[in-house]
């Protein structure tokens, strides 16, 4: 919708409708880049507004996933009959759960970032709307890295040790962020048209959590691997499990294979999310 061309100063900006609804990409991305500092400060403000800058706010953020992990440990212990004396499994659940909450936090907070006018930005500015969910994704990454420190003592206590696969953690973080962000972009658009999406989202994410090898070991479904791998989060959280604690089964899915599927999934999701959002974001001002 907005394009600029270098003529004699000042630059020319054009507003016009486009057939696909997509804005001219080069200018759109340049405009989004122009607001990168705003995204960082908006994210920082978001962290502060959630009281994460206070001592108890930080403690709660770290404890919350740990308590979730403990509940699921008991839950899996009863349902799966695994007992309650396996610290290795507790560490696996808590570690994976931190990584899952990173993903689900990006989806829920980024998807709702454009609701309620977003401080007038939707109706009174030309800031690319994608900057807002981007800021929420930055917030989620910030909180994930802080909370990951709390996992370290449990990792040591459970004797999960050091593995070469740990070097993949930064790459997995990027992929998880891309997948979460891509899904959030689609959900944000759907939420503008169907307001109940934001209510359904937590339930959908919880179901997805149970279907993915987060609170259960990926080796449990090796006999039925074809079905399990229909879920794109199967290779994703297999990779997270191996990255945190090393392989559970040398004959099971390979790390590189899991990473390949996860990378492919992340690429598809981010492209679909970007196109969906960018082609519809002009309507947010009317519909919010």
């Amino acid at each position, binding site marked *: *919708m*907005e394009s600029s061309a270098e003529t004699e100063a*000042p*630059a*020319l*900006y*054009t*507003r*016009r*409708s486009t057939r696909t609804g997509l804005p001219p990409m080069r200018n759109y991305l340049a405009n989004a880049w*122009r*607001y990168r*500092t*705003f995204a960082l*400060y*908006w994210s920082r*403000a*978001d962290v*502060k*507004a959630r009281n994460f800058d206070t001592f108890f706010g930080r403690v709660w953020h770290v404890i919350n996933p740990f308590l979730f992990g403990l509940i699921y440990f008991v839950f899996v212990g009863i349902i799966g009959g695994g007992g309650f004396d396996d610290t290795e499994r507790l560490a696996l659940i808590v570690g994976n759960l931190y990584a899952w909450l990173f993903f689900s936090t990006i989806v829920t907070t980024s998807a709702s970032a454009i609701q309620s006018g977003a*401080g*007038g*930005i*939707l*109706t*009174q*500015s*030309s*800031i690319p709307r994608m900057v807002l969910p981007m800021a929420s994704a930055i917030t989620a990454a910030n909180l994930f890295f802080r909370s990951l420190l709390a996992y370290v003592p449990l990792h040591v206590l459970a004797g999960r040790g050091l593995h070469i696969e740990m070097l993949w953690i930064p790459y997995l973080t990027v992929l998880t962020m891309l997948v979460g962000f891509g899904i959030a972009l689609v959900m944000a658009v759907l939420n503008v048209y169907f307001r109940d999406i934001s209510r359904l989202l937590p339930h959908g994410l919880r179901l997805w959590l149970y279907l993915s090898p987060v609170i259960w070991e990926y080796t449990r479904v090796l006999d039925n691997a074809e079905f399990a791998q229909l879920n794109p989060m199967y290779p994703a959280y297999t990779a997270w499990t191996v990255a945190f604690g090393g392989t559970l089964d040398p004959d099971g899915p390979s790390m590189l294979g899991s990473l390949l599927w996860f990378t492919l999934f992340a690429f598809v999701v981010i492209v679909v999310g970007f196109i969906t959002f960018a082609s519809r974001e*002009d*309507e947010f*001002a*009317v519909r919010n």
Partner: protein
Amino acid sequence: MRIENLSLAYSAVVEVPRDERPFPWSRRTKKREIQALDNVNFSVGAGKAVALLGGNGAGKSTLMKTIIGALKPSAGRIDLWGRPHLLAPGLGFNRKLSGRENVILGGLAAGMTLEEVKDKAESIIDFADIGGFIEMPTTTYSSGMFGRLAFAVATHVDPDILLIDEALSAGDAAFKERAVNRVQEMCSAARTIIVVSHSTALVSEMATEGVWLHQGHVRMQGDIDEVSEAYLKFQAEGTETAQLDRTIADR
């Protein structure tokens, strides 16, 4: 700035009254198309100030939002020589942050670089003149104090094209005078100005040309005094409300 054949329509979902539903299972809502702007054409030369006049629902604010890029045209185009800035006090503010933090956040949202905001921060704070409250969360501010700070941030931008939509004053009487002076300073620095206000006296002071919008299309364009006079006469005859009612009934 040049606007050519600009139209903007959007659909809204409206509830169908119970007595208009023939069967219990009939649809309770229906889509209605709103033609907010209809083939609008005009241009504003560099260094000119133009006032948009028109009643409620004429399309003035929609046009401003389309110029800044918040709304997309359904047809036609707008060419802008220079980046536009809508004077929008409070844009990007977060009420849980302190006044000082909101100066930075609001300045960035208004399109300033971090260096620019930091350079201007003290000037903005001096202009807002809210004393020690600047370090406190803005949730503790009175609405007047918040308005002063928001106005101070919004008016420290150096735009090429300045858009003002009913945002000419904030705070108490003393601050209002400073606010109007500040906006006039901005106007003298900006290359092009478009101002919307229901006060024809005020826009006559600020603008040399007028564009009268009526139900989404340009009804008259020309010298500000002539356009203002025609618009005031039209309003005095009470025809605008009647026509607006007829249009809604037709739709």
